[in-house]
């Protein structure tokens, strides 16, 4: 048997194998997909001291003390709501923390019950 005739069967097997593999494969591409999650930390979980500063029966500012250094550089926002009107303002906390007085944009009247809310955004 010539060399050419002996080579034909193996070549046929190889080609057949390639064809079968090609038939079983699928073209596939993908869009990008990225996801991430992270906790939203608090600069402190300790209690803060809050003092409302009055003037003529209205709350003109609020002093927040005992702020730790970890809150330094953050922005302190304070709002006073007496149930009828709301006054709010913000101030940057010093790098070392401490006490910050926030002046309210409008001074709500001092009432028996009012609510003071604050939030620190950043650092």
């Amino acid at each position, binding site marked *: 048997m010539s060399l050419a005739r002996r080579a034909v069967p193996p070549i046929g097997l190889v080609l057949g194998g390639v064809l079968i593999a090609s038939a*079983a*494969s*699928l*073209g*596939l*591409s*993908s*869009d*990008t*997909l*990225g*996801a*991430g*999650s*992270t*906790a*939203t930390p608090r600069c402190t979980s300790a209690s803060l001291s809050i003092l409302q500063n009055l003037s003529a029966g209205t709350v003109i500012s609020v002093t927040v003390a005992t702020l730790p250094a970890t809150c330094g550089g953050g922005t302190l*926002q304070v*709002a006073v*709501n007496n149930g009828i009107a*709301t006054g*709010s303002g913000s101030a940057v906390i010093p790098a070392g923390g401490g006490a910050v007085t926030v002046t309210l944009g409008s001074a709500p009247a001092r009432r028996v019950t009012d*609510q003071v*809310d*604050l*939030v620190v*955004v*950043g650092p």
Partner: protein
Amino acid sequence: MNSLVDQIVSLNEDAAPRGRLLDRVRPGRRLVAAVIAGVLTFSVVYGLAASLNLTSDSLGAATTTVAACQAGTLNATYTSTYSAAAPGYTVGTVTVTGLAATCYSKAYKVTLSGAAGASLGEATGTTPSSGTSFAAAFAPAVSAASVTAINVVISG
């Protein structure tokens, strides 16, 4: 009785010398035997082939990589606003900075979550085609005190 003995003797005398069995079979009978053997053989083979009924659903497989549009870190900052209706501070906008050009014009989803990972609010949109940041607006705004985590996904 003698006739039977004579026949046996006659057969022995007519027999071919000792050799292969096929050599002692006449050519015509050899052909018939070959045909019968072939029929029997292929009948068995045919029987085996006919005993398998096989069909197949299609099956295709492929693998590809799912990659993120950027490797750089994104940073989220919060814009809080006081809400008398809440009452309290709420987060209405989350600004995501650190966006790379490879993430331009892709769908995003930002979710603020609270205790036990529960979703507090979700903002969706498309990243800009320029710049390094985008703002995700939450409507309604989410209670700032309840936010414990932020989740961002960008796809496309």
